[in-house]
């Protein structure tokens, strides 16, 4: 692992802070909102990119995992636990300090689960479901796998729509803030846009670092081998089904993480944000980013999500998205933003430098010979 892999991270941090300073200084702080949402979606996209780009498996149910994360989180942190305060289990949680007392919008005092516990539970549930689903589903291939995961997404969407606990078609609103340390919280308050932006970027960067490390590790190489040829990978001793399952669970976890944190930022979640077309859109975004290029997926996700969240093109928004998608697939199937393209740009310069060096060396030798 060389320093070279971490340089883009520095660049990303620099870019993000420059963007924030620029937007804040010209009074466009409200634009940080969509950027924050886009960076939580970035977490989801990285998960899908690991699955699609490195193991070559397509999951069209990613919005389902996103939904599990955000809905479990939203339900757990809004459920009023006062009626059960005296029961043993809740009492124990209270003693352990895992419960929060706060005032709801009507000024009434309510007792909720701490967001940290909720997050742990949401991620745990997602991992369990992904594991149980992955065991049979990952035996399928290609279109069959796509259909099975699509079906999973449909089931989650319908469940959310029809179970009263999940708020039916209204969804869940009034999700409280997620206070990480005193003074720093993921919240929907307009006054905390800047700190929220940096929080989201920080989460994204941690996930990017984890993903880069994973990709460059032994596991990453195994995944690439699997992508190239499953049979061959199996024959050199890679347990392909296990690696596929692990990556599936990791990508589901990242989708759930993005969803669970985003629900605190938005303050609400509705069934329309986890429908099947959202899954298709996520797959399309990862493809637009070049699938196996994590930075490409991150940047492309930022650009396209920001444009659609801000509705820059109004009613021509989806047309713009589709056109970009098609153009990228036709002319740049490996993504617009990719390190190798920059390398290609620099290559002629490098070559010239090499020639000059050679020339200098030859002249030096000539001089030495004369002496």
């Amino acid at each position, binding site marked *: 692992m060389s320093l070279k892999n971490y340089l883009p991270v520095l660049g990303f941090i620099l870019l993000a802070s420059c963007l924030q300073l620029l937007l804040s200084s010209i009074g466009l702080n409200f634009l940080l909102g969509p950027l924050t949402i886009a960076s939580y979606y970035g977490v989801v996209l990285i998960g899908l990119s690991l699955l699609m780009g490195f193991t070559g498996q397509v999951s069209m149910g990613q919005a389902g995992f996103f939904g599990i994360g955000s809905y479990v989180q939203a339900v757990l942190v809004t459920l009023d636990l006062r009626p059960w305060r005296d029961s043993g289990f809740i009492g124990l949680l209270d003693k352990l300090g895992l419960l929060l007392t706060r005032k709801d919008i009507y000024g009434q005092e309510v007792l909720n689960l701490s967001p940290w516990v909720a997050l742990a539970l949401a991620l745990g549930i997602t991992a369990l479901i992904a594991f149980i689903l992955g065991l049979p589903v990952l035996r399928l291939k290609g279109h*069959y796998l796509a259909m099975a995961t699509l*079906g999973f997404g449909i089931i989650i969407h319908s469940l959310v729509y029809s179970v009263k606990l999940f708020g039916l078609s209204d969804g869940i609103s009034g999700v409280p803030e997620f206070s990480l340390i005193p003074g720093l919280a993921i919240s929907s308050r307009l006054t905390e846009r800047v700190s929220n932006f940096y929080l989201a970027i920080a989460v994204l960067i941690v996930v990017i670092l984890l993903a880069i490390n994973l990709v460059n590790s032994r596991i990453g190489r195994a995944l690439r081998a699997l992508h190239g040829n499953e049979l061959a990978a199996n024959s050199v001793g890679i347990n392909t089904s296990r690696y596929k399952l692990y990556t599936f669970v990791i990508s589901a976890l990242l989708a759930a993480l993005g969803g669970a944190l985003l629900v605190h930022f938005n303050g609400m979640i509705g069934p329309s944000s986890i429908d099947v077309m959202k899954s298709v859109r996520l797959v399309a975004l990862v*493809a637009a980013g070049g699938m196996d290029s994590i930075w490409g997926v991150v940047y492309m996700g930022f650009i396209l999500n920001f444009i659609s969240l801000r509705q820059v093109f109004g009613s021509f928004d*989806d*047309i713009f998205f589709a*056109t970009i998608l098609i153009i990228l697939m036709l002319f740049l199937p490996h993504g617009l933003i990719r390190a190798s393209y920059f390398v290609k740009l620099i290559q002629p310069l490098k070559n010239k430098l090499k020639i000059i060096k050679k020339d200098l060396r030859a002249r030096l030798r000539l001089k030495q010979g004369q002496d």
Partner: protein
Amino acid sequence: MTGLELFFQYIVAGLTRGSIYAVIAIGFNIIYNATGIINFAQGEFVVLGALIGITFASFIPLPLAILLAVVLAALYGAIVEIVFIRYERRFSALRALGISVLIFAFLALAGFVPDQFLAFSLINWLILLLLVACALGLGLLIELVFNNYMKERNILRLIIITIGVSILTREAMDHVWGKEAYAFPFFSGNEVSSVSLGNIQFSPQLLWILGTLLLIVIALYAFFKFSLWGKAMRATSLDRQAARLCGINTRFLITLSFIISAGMGALAGIVTSPLTQTKYDMGAHLAINGFAVAILGGLGNSFAAALAGLYLGILEALSVAILPNAFKDIVAILILLGVLFIRPAGIFGSQKESALRDF
């Protein structure tokens, strides 16, 4: 009404939905056999055909309107294939023409074409002529400049392209027809007329729907079994390289597969429109259900798809009778997942063959 009659009533409703799923799934299969991709714009072909048909039906006789709509939808399918799917790195006049048509459609959507150009005013015709010339020139220019930059794409990326095409088509239909639901006029009778079979009542349109499905299946069977092009298409789906070596123009056959499935989808869309109505954004749901049906039957097998489509439609209708409406999709999907876990290549699909394919 007794329980048994109610049961048959639900079956009848299920057959209506099932027929359109079946036709979409057959469309998926035809394109899958030719190219190996799933065409996500298939649902949009259905909706586009129905909407064009509805527009024409208001001023020309029904049979002519149906014919025109099917031909136009098939043409659209051909353009989609030629412009977006075909991989050709040389200059292609056909593709230039296709790009021009799409550009002209975009100009028309953006409001450049005068609304009353049928009014025979000279200036309107001149503007139209200018726009056509513009579109042709631009199409030619784009083709000339960019044909060499096209990159070879794998199946996944081709599918992403069809997703893009489906979004484009849907949005274009939104701009032209708006968000209302339309219905094609009933072929015979009207909303209230009904045919009774014993104690079961149903609309005569259902007979038209089932008849059309049967016609499509028989016509396709005859086409693939007896015609030269049909045989060539089967050869192509078995082994494209070998088919090309035998002198089969595989490139044209892929276009033909898009033409057939778009035209067929349009026909199905028109036939079911009187009962189910047509809205610009119905395509995605139709495509997903059609995809489920195609997978359930086993990809590539059109006759299994027809059966699976009717089966899924009936199942959906019956589950509405017992469970809340929101679970309508779940039952069918759960059964699909169950089938896939036991037979990973669909009910009728060959397990060995699918194990050898990547997609």
